[in-house]
């Protein structure tokens, strides 16, 4: 593959950090330097003590050579972080708007390269950042329980935070969507058993496309749907690339779903097609835990 499996459909944390390094930060030069023409801009000529703005990666390089001090952004002060923490803790259903998009990465970059430029002891800032991160992670987790196949709103989420849930959310929502399609498809097929009845040209057709070319995975899915639900879950444990696993899971889940919910009304689904709403199904807790585990993997795996 042209891209390593761990970078398919998502980014590695180093990439998110790399992007954040392009954002600007104010520095106070300690030495003079002529301007430098770059591909993406020009580093202005520097005179000692005269503040300028440069990309973070430039600031980090200068700082490494003790040629500048970095001015930490306002939101990174102890006082503001405390305010932010309180704001985060006060509302467990949404992220506060106090932090910039790249707050996790910028925080790490500045703590890592210029701890002596912070106005408070680095460990105080570090702990505050960690506390904020944890309280926001708890929110993200809680929010993911309400995943559906329609949309998910994540206002004020940070770039790194978003990327940590990306694989999980993408996989889960695409699966929910396929399950929805499978059920609709199954209902249609109940009426119409001709095998070659296909409305191929219907753009709105939500039937999952089961690529012939990906046939092994699909074929496995079919086989699993004849097995017990428990056996079919093994699909989620096998190795392979993200998209291969997702593909396997989508079919195994689809199989399980199809068996266990065929007599449920469809009306509840767009709202909450979650795994937990079947009170009489003993497997539910398992499913729930599986989601939690997958989420944790998504977060901790990075």
């Amino acid at each position: 593959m042209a891209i390593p499996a761990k970078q398919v459909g998502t980014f590695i944390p180093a990439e998110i950090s790399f992007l954040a390094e392009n954002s600007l930060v104010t520095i106070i030069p300690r030495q003079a330097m002529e301007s430098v023409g770059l591909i993406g801009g020009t580093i202005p000529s520097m005179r000692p003590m005269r503040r300028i703005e440069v990309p973070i990666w430039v600031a980090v390089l200068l700082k490494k050579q003790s040629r500048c001090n970095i001015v930490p952004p306002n939101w990174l002060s102890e006082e503001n972080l405390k305010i932010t923490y309180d704001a985060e803790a006060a509302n467990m259903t949404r992220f506060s708007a106090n932090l910039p998009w790249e707050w996790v990465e910028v925080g790490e970059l500045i703590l890592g390269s210029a701890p002596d430029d912070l106005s408070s002891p680095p460990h105080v800032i570090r702990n505050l950042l960690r506390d904020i991160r944890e309280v926001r992670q708890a929110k993200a987790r809680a929010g993911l329980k309400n995943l559906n196949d329609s949309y998910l709103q994540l206002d004020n989420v940070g770039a790194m935070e978003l990327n940590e849930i990306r694989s999980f959310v993408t996989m889960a929502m695409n699966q929910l969507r396929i399950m929805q399609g499978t059920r609709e498809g199954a209902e249609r097929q109940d009426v119409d058993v001709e095998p070659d009845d296909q409305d191929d040209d219907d753009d709105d057709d939500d039937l999952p496309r089961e690529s012939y070319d990906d046939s092994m995975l699909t074929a496995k899915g079919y086989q699993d749907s004849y097995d017990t639900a428990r056996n079919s879950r093994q699909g989620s444990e096998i190795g392979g690339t993200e998209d291969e696993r997702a593909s396997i899971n989508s079919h195994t889940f689809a199989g399980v779903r199809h068996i266990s919910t065929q007599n449920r009304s469809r009306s509840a689904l767009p709202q909450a097609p979650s795994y937990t709403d079947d009170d009489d199904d003993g497997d539910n807790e398992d499913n729930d835990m599986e989601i939690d585990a997958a989420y944790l993997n998504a977060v901790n795996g990075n």
Partner: protein
Amino acid sequence: MHFSNHISFTTMYGDLAAKLIQDSKRTQSLDVLPAYQADLVNSIIREIRDLQRDVKILLDQQGPNFRASQDRRVSCAIFVLQICMRRNKRCLLAYHKLRARRLETLVWSGFETTSIGSEGDSGVALSDRPSVASGWHPDEEEYFRGYGDVLAELKGEWTDIDLTGSMEPPRDLFIDVRVLKDAGEIQTEYGLITLTKNSQFYVRQGDVERLIQQGYIQKLH
């Protein structure tokens, strides 16, 4: 394998393909590409041909006036046979697609098939190279080389950016290093550096990567 016109026996079909899928599943979790399952593949091809023959026999038995809609029993039997054939084909495709993709990944990761790379000093890497052909089918070696050529041409059009270069974001172009044992002089883009034990340098990481691996110098943090 015993053949009968009875549909119930068709449950035997597909077992081989399932084995191939098991192998694919295993392949996905392995770092090395396992041996090619030539016997299994050939058996499945044979099974598909047997199934095709069965279809033909069934159809021949019905004579020229056979109409599928009028004999549900026969048309159902044929339908099942067809499904088995197609499933087998799909399993074959999936297995080979997975193998092809793994071969491609190897090409991307730098296992050159033609000359051993253009960097003259990469002779060391030669002995590290895993045996390319272990367990591969000759056709796979051919695909490996064929894809290598295809990629080499594409790469040749992008020499400015090194298409097969690292997918990790660049960081620390220059690093601080300490010399652990005398290593003579090295030529860098910034001139000649003499590496005497315990000296420290701020050097281009790319210039000393190999010396770090060989234990001559150590990266300082």
